[in-house]
Structure formats: structure tokens, C-alpha cells
């Protein structure tokens, strides 16, 4: 017996309906809701990290200022770095953009493990609460975001500041690992029929690369954090030279994670660029396979370059030369992508709307940051500018210019899809120009002041060394950037309230999310489409291959060619993820204050929560 389209949609609406109210949000397993939870939570942390940055810039606007003292300044630059990397960019890209968009782009109804997805968000929220609770208690991490030992050893940092660092980061890493595993399995196993890897959107390639990077890089950080926690709290000696340890071990482990992390931060931004460019230039991406390979290669090569962060530590020359050469290889996949983006824009019919403007700004800033990155390959130059503001300038061009600009562009690009409303174009373009000017004014003078010798992490400086005017310019740029960000979000809020209806496909975008209503229904696709190219929305009406309406169902596909292999039941809303995350966070909070016995008891509760989670099995169909 067959059903009509209306009957099928009604049925799906009932089967996939979310619980209403706050409880619905607390127990949700819907990837779109979890993506939005990630979005709002990371924006809160972005605000906190921004305030920390402005406080630092205000302090440094003039010489000899004492708005905050050195201890507070230490916490400000440490927590600012941690927040922007671990509580803003990574969760905003993999957590918010990845969660919301990847399942839809591959033609799935949810992530592969919906409850694990909810768990990752709540653990992430718990980790942020732990970090900022420590900050509020005056015990914010204070040894820099890379937390070098012996500075962070108990002898030199006797408070609980470093425990907040190790345990909040360990929790955060757990959340990122869960999200990455989920994204990888979703991309491998839930693709729409016909979506072989060569037909998978470049956005998904980028998120696959970032997720693989996180899965293999984060353990290095976890081991480092575990070693440091054991050393500080139980008297172990991993980094203690007097007892056979090595402070270099911390650096090796940290940067083995830390450098891939830089590429993990920017590769999702590459993915956003490769969606926006075709939509607004009305042409397919040039060098599609090369870009896909380059996205993976950037992360892969990133695992072999970590010691270039250690050029000034006295490593043997052979090691330095090897890592300089290895680092130079990153230029190849990066340049392939820069040329592919640029030539796609130049050979297309570009409409310079707000999202594309942000992508052009991103390309410009990525090239500037990339060129200063190449300068570090010259080992004597690197040794000269290590620990100066030149390094700050370089990585902010990469992290803010290359990673955050596409995030802003992506917010505008997918705003109509998520809200069902069009944003206001002119204010959007104004927000871009404010941000472009502000960011360059903020970060470019840092190159000069770095070359003049200003070290990073100083809380103030004398007035007779020629740094003051540059610092003042940077602070003005910082405030302009802040105004630009506020203007951007004000525009989005007003657009949400007063914007015109967007319809399903306002840009004539190439990928599957533009084939479904805006905002998408809970089940994403009433019928699962068959995909015949990487630009399915430009191929005309796709033939329907699966009409799943017999329950909370999801198709599972074969890895290589995306053909349907089986149909599985997907879990509904569940209270267990938030309960498990809460108990786990309490356990980690107890470890901060070294209450080991109580933490062990709470760990038993964590285990019982897991048992409760798995008591109810899916019904056999």
C-alpha cells in the first residue's frame, strides 16, 4: 500500500517530533538542535575570550599601565588562548557547523551516534564551566596556553590553576574526540545512495580531515595532561630532570598535538570557503579532487612538523633542518587550495555578497599569515623573533583571519537555511569592512612591534622603547574589531526578527541542504535522494531511492560508493547524555581539588549512569 506525500510528511512529523520546552533541549539528540546548542555556547565563550583580549589590549594601549596586575594578566592571556582555540573555534566548526550541516550534506537524518553527540555537547559545556569556575575563583590557568614545564610544575605554580588547565582541557578533549568520531562514522556510513567519495561535498572532506586529525592528535595532549597531573598531585617525575624526566617531553607531546591542531582549526574554514565560492560565483570548484586531497594532506603533514615550535630550545641542527624542510611541504597543499579558490572566483561570475566578501578577506589574510609562516622556516629568523609579537601577529592572521573570517562568512551563508529568514545584505557588507579594517589594524602592527623586540606575554612595557604608538594602533584596531563583531551579530538578530522569508534555496546553492525546507524539518529529508554528482542541487530533481517512514529510521551505506546496505533504528531524546556529562564533570571538579576518594565514588555513579543508558534496547524490527 502506498502513501501520499502529505501523509508521509505528517507521519514523519509525528515520528521525529522533539519534546517541547526546555526539557526537549536538555534531552535532545537531534543533530540540528545540538549544533545550535554548540553555536550558542561557543558564542558565550567567544564573548568571554573577546573580553579577555580587550582587557589585555586596554592594558597595553599605553606604556606603564596597571589596569590589571601581572597575575591577572597571566590568567588573561592563558585563558584567552585556551578559550579561542578549544572553546570557540574547534566547537564552533566541528560542533556547530559540522553537527548541523554534515548530516544534511551527506543526505542523512542524524549523526551516526545521536546520544553520543548529545554527550559530547554536555561534556563540552561541563569543561567550559570548569574552566571559568576556576577563573572566577582566581585560579584560572596562568602558564600560557602551551603551559610549559617547569613553569607549570608545582614548585613554580603551587595553586590549583594548572589543575584547572589539565582537567578542563582533558574534558574538552573528550568532547572533541566524541564529536570527531561521530563525524567520521557519519561521513563514512550515512551518505546518501550514490554519494561516492568523489561526489562528497568538499565541506565534508574538510570536516573528515579535521576529525581524523583530532582523533589522532588529541591523545598526545591527553597523555601530556595526565603526566602533568600525576607529577603535580602524586609526585611522579615525567618532566623532572633531577629524577630522570625531561621538560622537553612536555614540549614534544604538546606540539605533536599542537601543530596538527592549527590545521584542524583552519581546515573546516577551507571547507566553508569551498561551499560559499561555488554558490556565489555560479561555477563548480576548480581542481575538486586536488582540493579534497590537499585538505587531507594539510592535516597529515601537520603531524610531522611539531618541532618547528622548538627551534629556540637548543635541539640539534640536524633536527632543526629536518623539521624546517618538513614544514615547507605544507606550502604545497596550501598553495593548491589558494590557487583553486582564487581561480574559481576569477573565472566564475562572482556576486560579492557578504559571505563571499568574508571568503575574499580570508584568502588575503591566509596569504599574509602563510607568508610570515614561511619566514619561520629560516631557522635564524625564527630564533630571532621567537617569543615576540611577530609570532602573535603570524598566528592571529591564521587563526582569526583564516579560521574565523570563514566562520563569519558561513554564519551569513547558512543563516537563511537555519532560520528561514534572509539577512540584511548592506549591513552585512558593512560588518565585513569594519572587521577587515579592524583586524588588520589590530594584528598588522604586531609584526613591526615584534621585529622591534617586544616580547609576548608582558603585562606592561617602558615608554622609551618605541613600542607605544604601535600598541595604541593595535588597541584601536581591537575595539574596531569588537564593534564589527557586535554589528555582525546585531544584523543577524535584526534579520531573524524582521528578515524576509528565505525559502528553501535563496542562493541556488549546490549541495543537498538547499534541497530541503528552511529551517529543515526534524527528519531532514522526507525521502532520501540519490546523488549523481558533488553538486546535487544543480543536477535537477534527484530520483528518490529510499522512502523511510516506518519509524525513527536511518539508512546505512557502504563506505566506498554510498549504496544502501541496511536500515537501522535511531535513538530518540534521552536524559542519559546530560546526566553522564554532569557526573563526569563533578568527578573532574573533585580531581581539581584532589579529593580522590570522593571522585572515585562519583566515578562509580558515572558507571551506573552508563548502565542506565544501555538498559533500554532498540526494538527489533
Amino acid at each position: 500500500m502506498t502513501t501520499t506525500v502529505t501523509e508521509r510528511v505528517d507521519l514523519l512529523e509525528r515520528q521525529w517530533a522533539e519534546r517541547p520546552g526546555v526539557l526537549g533541549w536538555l534531552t535532545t539528540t537531534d543533530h540540528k538542535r545540538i549544533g545550535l546548542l554548540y553555536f550558542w555556547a561557543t558564542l558565550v565563550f567567544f564573548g568571554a575570550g573577546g573580553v579577555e583580549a580587550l582587557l589585555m589590549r586596554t592594558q597595553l594601549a599605553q606604556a606603564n599601565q596597571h589596569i590589571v596586575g601581572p597575575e591577572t594578566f597571566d590568567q588573561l592571556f592563558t585563558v584567552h588562548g585556551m578559550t579561542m582555540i578549544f572553546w570557540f573555534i574547534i566547537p564552533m566548526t566541528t560542533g556547530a557547523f559540522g553537527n548541523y550541516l554534515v548530516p544534511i550534506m551527506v543526505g542523512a537524518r542524524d549523526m551516526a551516534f545521536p546520544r553520543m553527540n548529545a554527550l559530547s555537547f554536555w561534556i563540552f559545556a561541563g569543561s567550559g564551566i570548569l574552566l571559568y569556575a576556576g577563573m572566577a575563583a582566581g585560579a584560572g590557568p596562568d602558564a600560557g596556553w602551551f603551559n610549559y614545564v617547569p613553569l607549570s610544575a608545582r614548585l613554580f605554580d603551587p595553586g590549583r590553576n594548572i589543575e584547572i588547565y589539565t582537567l578542563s582541557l582533558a574534558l574538552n578533549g573528550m568532547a572533541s574526540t566524541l564529536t570527531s568520531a561521530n563525524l567520521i562514522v557519519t561521513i563514512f556510513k550515512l551518505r546518501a545512495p550514490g554519494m561516492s567519495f568523489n561526489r562528497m561535498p568538499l565541506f565534508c572532506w574538510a570536516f573528515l580531515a579535521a576529525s581524523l586529525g583530532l582523533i589522532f592528535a588529541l591523545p598526545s595532549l591527553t597523555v601530556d595532561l595526565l603526566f602533568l597531573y600525576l607529577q603535580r598531585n602524586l609526585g611522579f617525575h615525567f618532566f623532572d630532570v633531577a629524577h630522570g624526566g625531561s621538560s622537553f617531553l612536555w614540549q614534544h607531546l604538546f606540539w605533536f598535538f599542537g601543530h596538527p591542531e592549527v590545521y584542524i582549526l583552519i581546515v573546516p574554514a577551507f571547507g566553508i570557503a569551498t561551499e560559499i565560492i561555488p554558490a556565489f560565483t555560479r561555477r563548480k570548484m576548480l581542481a575538486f579532487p586536488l582540493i579534497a586531497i590537499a585538505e587531507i594532506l594539510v592535516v597529515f603533514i601537520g603531524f610531522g612538523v611539531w618541532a618547528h615550535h622548538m627551534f629556540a630550545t637548543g635541539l640539534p641542527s640536524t633536527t632543526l633542518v629536518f623539521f624546517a624542510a618538513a614544514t615547507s611541504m605544507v606550502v604545497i597543499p596550501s598553495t593548491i587550495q589558494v590557487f583553486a579558490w582564487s581561480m574559481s572566483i576569477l573565472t566564475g561570475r562572482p556576486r560579492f555578497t557578504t559571505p563571499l566578501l568574508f571568503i575574499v578577506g580570508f584568502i588575503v589574510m591566509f596569504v599574509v599569515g602563510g607568508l610570515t609562516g614561511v619566514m619561520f622556516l629560516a631557522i635564524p629568523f625564527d630564533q630571532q623573533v621567537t617569543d615576540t609579537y611577530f609570532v602573535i601577529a603570524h598566528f592571529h592572521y591564521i587563526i582569526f583571519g583564516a579560521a574565523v573570517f570563514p566562520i563569519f562568512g558561513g554564519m551569513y551563508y547558512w543563516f537563511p537555511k537555519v532560520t528561514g529568514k534572509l539577512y540584511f545584505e548592506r549591513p552585512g557588507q558593512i560588518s565585513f569592512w569594519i572587521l577587515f579594517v579592524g583586524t588588520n589594524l589590530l594584528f598588522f602592527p604586531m609584526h613591526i612591534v615584534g621585529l622591534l623586540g617586544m616580547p609576548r606575554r608582558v603585562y606592561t612595557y617602558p615608554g622609551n622603547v618605541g613600542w607605544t604608538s604601535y600598541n595604541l594602533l593595535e588597541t584601536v584596531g581591537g575595539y574596531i574589531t569588537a564593534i564589527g563583531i557586535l554589528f555582525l551579530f546585531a544584523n543577524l538578530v535584526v534579520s531573524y526578527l524582521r528578515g524576509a522569508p528565505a525559502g528553501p534555496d535563496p542562493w541556488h546553492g549546490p549541495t543537498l541542504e538547499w534541497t530541503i525546507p528552511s529551517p529543515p524539518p526534524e527528519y531532514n529529508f522526507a525521502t532520501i535522494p540519490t546523488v549523481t554528482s558533488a553538486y546535487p542541487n544543480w543536477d535537477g530533481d534527484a530520483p528518490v531511492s529510499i522512502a523511510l517512514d516506518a519509524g525513527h529510521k536511518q539508512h546505512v551505506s557502504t563506505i566506498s560508493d554510498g549504496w544502501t546496505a541496511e536500515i537501522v533504528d535511531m535513538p530518540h531524546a534521552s536524559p542519559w547524555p546530560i546526566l553522564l556529562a554532569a557526573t563526569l564533570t563533578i568527578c573532574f571538579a573533585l580531581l581539581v581539588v584532589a579529593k580522590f576518594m570522593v571522585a572515585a565514588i562519583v566515578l562509580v555513579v558515572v558507571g551506573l549512569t552508563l548502565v542506565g543508558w544501555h538498559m533500554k534496547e532498540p526494538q527489533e524490527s
Partner: protein
Amino acid sequence: MSEYAVESRARERFPLGWWGVAMLIATETALFGMMVGSYIYLRLKAPVWPPRGIPEPKLVVPLILLGVLLVSTLPMWRATQSATPKRWLLLALVLQAGYFAMEVQLYHDDLQHFTPQQHAYGSLYYTLLGADHGHVAVGLLLNLWLLWKLLHGMTRYRRNALRAIAFYWYAVAVLTVIVTLTVLSPAFAR
């Protein structure tokens, strides 16, 4: 009424749960890789390893125990192939629990001779072994949970869980080989 038009080109060999465990194993392998790398790094820097005053690890009992753990993967594999997996799972559980109990005893005995607070060697020795034993303990809990579930009959969900947990045990066995050979390496090098 619902309608299916499933075009199935291939039966899937591995369920989603198996893929989830594959991700866990990938990241755990990296974790142990970093710990073993740290051991090698500090060992290469040390003039004497283990340092004076700390005995070299004994070979015989740990290697026999390693053999027991490796053998336990056979009944795990048989359980995944069998229509009545409970007895194979129980056999595996007995072997694994015996292995775990003996290893905990050895760990305790070692602590009588040297501590993790004495030298970086001890710190790494106990952390590596502790992390590995922790993974064995988790595997034991998973097997107990699965046995309890299987007492109430076999379902598709439980069959998938069995395959995923068996996969976890194969990985734990391989990681245990690496960890054991690493911590015993000073005795091999003698």
C-alpha cells in the same frame, strides 16, 4: 502505511557500533603510542635504565600472562561466530579475569620494590601498565554486562554489541603486547 523501496546493493559487514569501537581503538592506539614514545624518549636520554636501585623487570610470569590474554581472544572470536555465544564468552571472561587478577598482584608486588615517585622510570612503568590494566578492566565490565544481557536471549542489538566488544578485546590484546614488551624491554636488552 509505510512503504519501503530499499535498493540494497550490498549487505553491510560491520554494524555502526563496530565503527564506533573502531574510532575508540584508533584514538586509544594513538594514546598508547604517545606513552610508549615517551618511555622510549626518556630511556634514550638516560645513562642507565632502569636506574640504579630499581630491579630489572622479570620476564617469565608477565610473558606467560601475556600468552593467556592472547589465548582469550580465541573464545571471544568463537563467540562472535557461534549461535550460542554464552559459553565461549564465559570461557573468555574466566581467562581474562584470571589474567587481570594475576596482573594486579604483580603490580602490587612491584610496588613493594620501587615506586612511581622514585624515578621517571617508575612513573612510566606504573602509568603504562596502569593504563593497560584499566583497559582490561573496562573490557571485563563490558563482557559481564554482555553476558547478563545474553542470559535474556540474543537480539540484533546484542549480536552487534558482541562483535563490537570482541573487536575491543582484539585491540586490547595487541596494545597489551606492545605495552608488555615495552616495559620488559630492559630485561631483553640485558
